[in-house]
């Protein structure tokens, strides 16, 4: 097992897997999957809840009992104003200055709105938030987010909930190379453990996912798979991947090759 730690948002963590809390078959299954993943950050949300419903109490009690860091999101917001209000409400409810900033610009592919995201990030950072902005894999948008003070950037792998994996690894690599000191998390689009491994091999600091675990046939087992996938990718990155070659090169020694070689 890898024993390294890393820092994000002022916290020292061991796990580089950030896990969502939605879409599980049951609250009990969610709880078990989150535990199995060994993730130390779980994403949550805020929604309208009428008097007497009280259903959120059960969910929130489960999350609190996990005793891990909570990352509230602004999912469903379509403007900087909406996202800022939601972030302020989340700070009070969840007692954290962390916010996963999501400002959606298109309802079809749930692509983040870069203009509103940057605007909201700037205001929230000035208001004391630690902003985890969900963005596309656009290098210039990442630059603008860094310019307004984001220490963390979360480019998508592909569309939210699509499970398509990393659509554009070259763009993700460019962001990594340009911002070696920022914390970079691939957020959204992960479908298989190998996608998470790939993101980590690119040098990303972590992976945030939800559907890939929650919608698996066995979410608990898949949570375990992702735990190892993220760790394998990180170890692979740290180990230094071999250079690709355009030709074959035998790994078995050629000296002492037995007799059949002379008849070929």
């Amino acid at each position: 097992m890898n024993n390294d730690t890393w820092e994000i948002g002022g916290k020292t963590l061991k796990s580089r897997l950030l896990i969502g809390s939605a879409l599980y078959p049951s609250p009990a299954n969610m709880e078990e999957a989150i535990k199995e993943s060994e993730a130390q950050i779980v994403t949550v949300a805020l929604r309208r809840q009428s008097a007497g419903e009280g259903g959120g109490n059960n969910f929130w009690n489960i999350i609190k009992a996990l005793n891990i860091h909570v990352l509230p999101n602004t999912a469903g917001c379509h403007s900087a104003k909406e996202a800022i209000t939601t972030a302020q409400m989340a700070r009070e409810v969840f007692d954290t200055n962390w916010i996963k900033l999501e400002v959606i610009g298109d309802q079809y592919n749930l692509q983040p709105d870069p203009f509103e995201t940057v605007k909201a990030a700037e205001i929230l950072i000035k208001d004391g938030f630690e902003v985890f902005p969900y963005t596309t894999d656009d290098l210039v948008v990442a630059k603008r987010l860094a310019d307004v003070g984001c220490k963390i950037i979360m480019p998508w792998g592909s569309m939210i909930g699509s499970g398509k994996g990393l659509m554009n690894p070259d763009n993700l690599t460019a962001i990594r190379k340009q911002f070696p000191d920022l914390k970079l998390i691939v957020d959204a689009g992960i479908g298989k453990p190998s996608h998470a491994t790939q993101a980590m091999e690119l040098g990303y600091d972590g992976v945030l996912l939800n559907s890939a675990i929650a919608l698996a046939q066995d979410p608990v087992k898949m949570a375990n798979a992702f735990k190892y996938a993220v760790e394998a990718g990180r170890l692979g990155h740290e180990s230094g991947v071999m250079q690709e070659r355009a030709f074959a090169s035998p790994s078995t020694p050629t000296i002492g090759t037995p007799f059949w070689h002379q008849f070929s």
Partner: protein
Amino acid sequence: MIKVSINGEIKEIKQGLNISQMIDALNYTQQGFAVAVNTTFVSIKSYEQTIINDGDTIDILAPVQGG
């Protein structure tokens, strides 16, 4: 009585209530929640001073699952 929108539903409440009194009147049982009036966040420290007016839009948000 005044008419206000609470979480998207039009409701009639007494005139002159502040947010704390409105929450009590609604029998709101959620443990952790936050309030916005007319899309602006109102912190818990300001509940007593914030009077609900006719036509206000109030959102009461509570924790749910999220990705």
